[in-house]
């Protein structure tokens, strides 16, 4: 960490923000006409796109099946799936996976090869993408009213175009907007933000430079109205005395994100109703 001061004496971070300040967020809903719902969000230099299809009849999709069944069948299944281009698993899994009492939420995370500073070789299918997909799924199963759509499937595909820290948060925020654009009923918005801890101060909305410095990082997904936490994840060591402060910083940042997303949704609805002539 020599040479890079994450928090200066005056309380400014590397990019000039204050400790609890978020990066500039710009978002748009309804980016793609063919998808049921889509949204794009920019959080500073992190850009994420989310596309939602559904609710539709439970249908397997190529490599997703592979990653879902990996735990049960082992690695060789995934290799076979690669060779046959996804045929085997598609036919086998679909009907059995549709749940009789609620909808199945299926999330895929993919990050473009040019999204990071160093070019990535595999956009999806690697471990990190699978893990992110599962985390997104956990987050959205908590928020979407899946009881209303039994035996159907909701697909959420998130694509990261540029990664500059806080990719999980940007994905969750984009996916929330996309699910709302698709008209799928949700309990509440899901707003996410990351937080860290440097020199006794909790920082909100970490950029790549701050994440790479190696301090503790917390990712939080919150349902703002009730204050319920949908996902909480923390890396690296943090003394439990500080946990509450970091958690509070992340929660406050998530609530700020909620204010912005709410504004975006209202603006979108206003534009849509003007176009409809209401």
């Amino acid at each position, binding site marked *: 960490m020599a040479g890079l001061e994450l928090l200066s004496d005056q309380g400014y971070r590397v990019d000039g923000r204050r400790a609890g300040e978020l990066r500039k967020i710009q978002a748009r809903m309804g980016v793609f006409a063919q998808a049921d719902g889509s949204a*794009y969000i920019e959080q500073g230099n992190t850009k994420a796109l989310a596309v939602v299809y559904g609710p539709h009849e439970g249908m397997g999709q190529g490599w997703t099946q592979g990653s879902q069944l990996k735990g049960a069948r082992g690695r060789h299944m995934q290799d076979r799936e690669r060779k046959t281009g996804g045929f085997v698993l598609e036919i086998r899994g679909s009907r059995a996976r549709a749940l009789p009492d609620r909808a199945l939420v299926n999330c895929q995370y993919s990050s473009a*090869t*040019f999204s990071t500073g160093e070019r990535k070789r595999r956009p999806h299918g690697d471990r990190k993408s699978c893990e992110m997909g599962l985390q997104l799924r956990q987050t959205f199963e908590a928020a979407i009213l899946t009881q209303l759509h039994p035996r159907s499937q909701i*697909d959420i*595909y998130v*694509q990261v175009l*540029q990664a500059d820290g806080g990719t999980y948060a940007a994905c969750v925020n984009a996916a929330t907007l996309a699910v709302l654009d698709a008209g799928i009923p949700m309990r509440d918005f899901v707003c996410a933000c990351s937080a860290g801890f440097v020199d006794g101060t909790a920082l909100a909305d970490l950029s790549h430079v701050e994440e790479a410095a190696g301090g503790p990082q917390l990712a939080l997904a919150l349902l703002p109205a009730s204050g319920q936490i949908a996902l909480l994840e923390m890396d690296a060591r943090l003394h439990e005395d500080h946990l509450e402060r970091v958690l509070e910083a992340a929660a406050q940042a998530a609530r700020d994100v909620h204010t912005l997303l709410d504004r975006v949704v209202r603006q979108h609805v206003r534009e849509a109703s003007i176009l409809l002539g209401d």
Partner: protein
Amino acid sequence: MASVTLSEAEKVYIVHGVQEDLRVDGRGCEDYRCVEVETDVVSNTSGSARVKLGHTDILVGVKAEMGTPKLEKPNEGYLEFFVDCATPEFEGRGGDDLGTEIANTLYRIFNNKSSVDLKTLCISPREHCWVLYVDVLLLECGGNLFDAISIAVKAALFNTRIPRVRVLEDEEGSKDIELSDDPYDCIRLSVENVPCIVTLCKIGYRHVVDATLQEEACSLASLLVSVTSKGVVTCMRKVGKGSLDPESIFEMMETGKRVGKVLHASLQSVVHKEESLGPKRQKVGFLG
């Protein structure tokens, strides 16, 4: 390819319309849909471009990295293509197959001496050269993928800025590569001879340019022609399960050349106009 299911009546409607030079959206057989091109969309790449052709949305990012020249061409750099189909619509064949097919087609159309001047990518012969990784991201598929991808690749290559480097040799003979201090000091590629693909789909007795998904479902065979701005054909390929007779192929090639020249002229004017707005221009990206 992603496909839509059409009823017989819909197919007949489309086919009959095309015979009269009238397509479903009112275009003629040689008209393109409205194309939106924007460059420099992703900032941590050497060059990027986004193309929106009807419902087809493509994002291309070019990253320049240093590598070793290939053995048979020690004085040149090279291009590597990778296509990622991010849309979930590709059932059956899977996104990987389509991605490989598109990447192979891109390799073929660039596989000639004049498309890109690879000698400008050489830093020191046999040791260092620039490798341009051209990554294509398919966001939405609305028909006519090859054309949109080739337009995006051309725009991204036009936008690519490769930092200027100098090779310093010290007394022991070991070479050191020095990056120029000025971040705006870079080499640009000349995209004069970069070809664009024009896809011609045979529907009934006529052929159409820039087919939508519905029109592609009605066509049995298509011809991909890769044309440069001067009308030179660099690559040609027939796709589809039907067969074409030789006269049709010649006709389609002539149409492809004609349409290609117009396409190149419009693309050049758009990217030059965007470039002339300078670094202060408002970047819209996906927000507009």
